[in-house]
């Protein structure tokens, strides 16, 4: 949209708006809400303007043959949702003609719409119901047969479709085609027989299907899990953050009578705009599970017995105290920053142990901060905004839409705008290729190699890039040496040389249609690569690729768990404390801790919120270790396989039952607020840590998560800008500039 401004008049009020802004938006500037159904600012205009609800009367300047200009009224009313503002436009939104037009449109929308509002989940928050109340006809003049179509037709595990209620606004079809890119929903047939549908016989398997439920302006697309669970007016809602991945989508957590009911997206332009993914929207259902732990458990022989908190804390304090420097902590990637901060203080300050780690892969390279600047100052991870503005993005061993859903939507947005070129490097048969939403489907280059050859693929990519550039100038001798050692051919790992060459050309920035000579290159290393040995090599090779590219390149190993970034930032690592301050002596990393519990060098282990048995890259090794563990305490919501191996299990409060903050994949610290009270028998993790410390004679004095966040902001340099009062609803990315002074 051009920055040029134009003067228009709406209902007699003169205003200045950007040329080309849709009149429906301009009207909002002066508090005039024009009723509408199909319009949505994030959906394409081409298939829009179909409901005709937003009609307004328009006059615009017209030049006569003799050159004189008159402001002439257009003979027909115009849809304000698709009408670009232009100089001198005069708009009327409430004339008798418009009032009558709206009534007519609503009558048309209602003649075939079932009268089942009383049993419709949308009732109470239904745009059709609301607009009918304000603008609709008093009675119906329709005495014919209503359209009859299958009701409650399941499109997927999550979404049901009631075709009788559909008003054909094309919101869902535009979302699935444009925003999510799976294009699984479309219109079939025509005229009054037109139906929204996936391809006959197929299911709506999009990873983003849940958004269509919120976009639907009637009760045609509904959530299967929420169906008949509640009525909007008896729901309470709270600002929260999705815990299902590191992207940290802002959500509205709806609850009733102290129980989780559903998740809706909460707008945060910087993070999830107004989307969620199905992993989150429906995955949060775990909050309503019935098998929540209600009280501490202590192992007596083969079985657990319920215990009081005093008993349990006494046991835990004794065990940790006895172990002292031989105690260790694992996990924390699902805990709040406040928990992590207190826990690491307990271990470092009270137990004198640096044996903390959150990493579950085989390699323990420093990936915490996005990167370390030359002066050793940490730089925050790449933001979604930076991602969207990048010129080239490379996904290496990543299943983007699944691992980084919001990053995927941003990349798709940029791709549709034509400003980014995408490269997908992954193992053959990787999940990515089975998804309805995949980066590969948009990629300028797709490289596939035999499974298990990530390391070779990375070196081959470097070799190809060196060839494309015709120089290996900025490379370190170390990398040169390693590269020289790479002898195998692309074919040897089942990868096509052409694919590799195309990818290299895109990465280097030589391809034709190159949008900008300058720009940023972002390389993201995904889960498949992280969970296999060889990360050091991959980082070395891809780091060199980024250095060689004509773009300003940067390699990231993005966090994947909700607060994995927080765990990195706040020092759940053996060698770096909060804010990446180096700690001496370095403690044990995950692998060493697990072998340590076996050989006695670790005597007590606390696992927090992570099912190590399921998450550690080498599960058998994890199980062997935990079986041999002298003392294991697990803090979690449920009795996970890991918890089942514990000596003491401590139940903690969920994200819905407390306040706190998470740090998302961009290094953005975001608040979540308590929606309802926790079960009486559970406690917050940071309180548990404080109570253990107290029992060991070192009291910490925090009364609330707010106090802790204030302390974090005061003592952790990179979080200086992220104090409780700085976050607001959008959250705040940490940054190291603040450190400069210190």
């Amino acid at each position: 949209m051009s920055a040029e401004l134009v003067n228009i008049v709406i209902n007699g009020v003169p205003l200045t708006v950007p040329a080309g802004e849709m009149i429906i938006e301009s009207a909002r500037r002066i508090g005039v809400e024009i009723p509408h159904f199909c319009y949505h600012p994030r959906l394409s205009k081409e298939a829009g303007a179909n409901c005709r609800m937003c009609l307004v009367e328009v006059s615009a300047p017209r030049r006569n043959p003799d050159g004189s200009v008159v402001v002439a009224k257009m003979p027909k009313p115009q849809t304000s949702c698709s009408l670009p503002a232009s100089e001198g436009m005069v708009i009327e939104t409430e004339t008798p003609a418009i009032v009558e037009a709206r009534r007519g449109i609503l009558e048309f929308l209602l003649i075939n719409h079932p009268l089942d509002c009383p049993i419709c989940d949308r009732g109470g928050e239904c745009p059709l119901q609301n607009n009918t109340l304000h603008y609709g006809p008093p009675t119906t003049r329709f005495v014919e047969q209503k359209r009859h179509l299958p009701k409650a037709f399941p499109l997927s595990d999550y979404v049901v479709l009631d075709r009788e209620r559909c008003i054909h606004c094309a919101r869902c079809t535009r979302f699935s085609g444009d925003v999510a890119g799976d294009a699984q929903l479309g219109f079939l047939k025509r005229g009054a027989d037109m139906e929204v549908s996936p391809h006959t016989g197929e299911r709506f398997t999009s990873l983003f299907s849940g958004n269509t439920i919120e976009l639907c302006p009637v009760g045609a697309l509904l959530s299967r899990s929420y169906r008949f669970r509640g009525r909007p007016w008896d729901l309470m809602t709270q600002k929260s953050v999705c815990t299902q991945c590191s992207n940290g989508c802002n959500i509205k957590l709806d609850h009733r009578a102290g129980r989780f009911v559903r998740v809706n997206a909460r707008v945060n332009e910087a993070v999830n705009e107004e989307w969620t993914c199905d992993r989150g929207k429906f995955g949060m259902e775990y909050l309503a599970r019935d098998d929540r732990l209600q009280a501490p458990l202590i192992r007596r022989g083969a079985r657990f017995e319920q215990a009081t908190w005093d008993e349990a804390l006494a046991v835990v304090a004794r065990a940790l105290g006895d172990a002292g420097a031989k105690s260790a902590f694992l996990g924390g990637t699902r805990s709040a920053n406040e928990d992590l901060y207190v826990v690491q203080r307990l271990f470092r300050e009270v137990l004198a142990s640096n044996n903390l780690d959150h990493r579950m892969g085989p390699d323990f390279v420093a990936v915490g901060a996005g990167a370390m600047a030359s002066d050793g100052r940490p730089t925050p991870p790449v933001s979604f905004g930076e991602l969207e503005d990048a010129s080239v993005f490379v996904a290496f061993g990543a299943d983007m839409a699944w691992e980084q859903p919001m990053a995927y939507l941003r990349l798709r947005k940029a791709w549709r705008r034509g400003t980014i070129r995408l490269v997908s490097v992954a193992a053959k048969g990787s999940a990515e290729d089975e998804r309805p939403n995949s980066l590969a489907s948009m990629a300028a280059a797709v490289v596939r190699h035999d499974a298990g050859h990530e390391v070779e693929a990375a070196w081959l990519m470097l070799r190809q890039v060196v060839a494309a550039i015709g120089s290996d100038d900025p490379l370190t001798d170390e990398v040169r040496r390693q590269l020289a050692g790479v002898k195998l051919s692309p074919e040897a790992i089942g990868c096509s040389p052409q694919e590799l060459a195309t990818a290299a050309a895109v990465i280097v920035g030589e391809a034709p249609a190159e949008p900008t000579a300058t720009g940023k290159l972002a390389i993201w290393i995904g889960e498949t690569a992280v969970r296999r040995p060889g990360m050091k090599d991959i980082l070395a090779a891809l780091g060199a690729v980024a250095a060689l590219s004509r773009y300003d390149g940067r390699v990231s190993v993005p966090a994947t768990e909700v607060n994995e970034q927080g765990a990195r930032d706040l020092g759940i690592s053996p060698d770096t404390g909060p804010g990446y301050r180096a700690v001496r002596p370095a403690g044990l990393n995950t692998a060493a801790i697990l072998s340590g519990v076996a050989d006695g060098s670790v005597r007590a282990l606390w696992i927090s919120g992570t099912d190590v048995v399921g998450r550690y890259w080498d599960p058998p090794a994890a199980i062997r270790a935990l079986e041999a563990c002298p003392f294991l305490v697990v803090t979690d919501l449920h009795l996970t396989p890991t918890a089942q191996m514990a000596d003491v299990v401590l139940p903690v409060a969920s994200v819905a039952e407390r306040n706190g903050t998470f740090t998302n994949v961009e290094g953005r610290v975001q608040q979540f607020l308590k929606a309802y009270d926790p079960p009486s028998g559970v406690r917050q993790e940071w309180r548990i840590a404080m109570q253990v410390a107290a029992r060991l004679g070192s009291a910490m004095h925090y009364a609330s998560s707010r106090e802790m966040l204030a302390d974090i902001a005061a003592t952790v340099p990179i979080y200086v800008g992220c104090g409780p009062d700085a976050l607001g609803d959008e959250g705040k990315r940490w940054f190291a500039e603040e450190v400069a002074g210190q």
Partner: protein
Amino acid sequence: MAGNAEISGARGPSNFSAEAVAELNEIVSHYPEARAAMLPALWIAQREYGGEITSEAISEVAWRLGRPVVEVEGVATFYTMYHLGKRGRRHLEVCTCLTCAVLGAADTVRALEDRLGIKVGQTTPDGEFSLAEVECLNWCEAGTVVQVGGRYYGNVTPDNVDALIEAVRTAADATATAQADGIVKVHLGKAGASVSPSSQAESFDG
């Protein structure tokens, strides 16, 4: 612009003959985007799949053009000339729109129902004929007009429906497949040879 790459061309059913594939490729070359060949591709499919657009045919068109399946189904179900169910080899379509209606199309339809022993919307047991009423065929000067395959028959009345049926029985171009083939063929010709998609996209733009 939504390029073909958008939905990766996952392969699917492959019942197009080599000739059909060659025809499709030539037609695709008439446009800057493969998607534009959607209607011709469906005509090819209607011929290759024996006068019917089956779900398989839709999948084949989808992957050959690199388009979402539901999009292809959306197009196939929008236009009335694609046969989404089995029809007779010779599909009689009687215009019952304004002029033809005024000139007695209704009687002609009844007469055809009697002679063929089927009602509108049905197919004869031998699969030879099916009967339908259609909107304006735009040859009103010859009402009542009946279309069979690629051919129009004019001035049809209850008195000459027998003659019509006889003529249709033998007419080579009266079958649904012949019609589809004819429609595919008119897309092809000299023009095709002189243009490739790239030349369309780049000859001026770039």
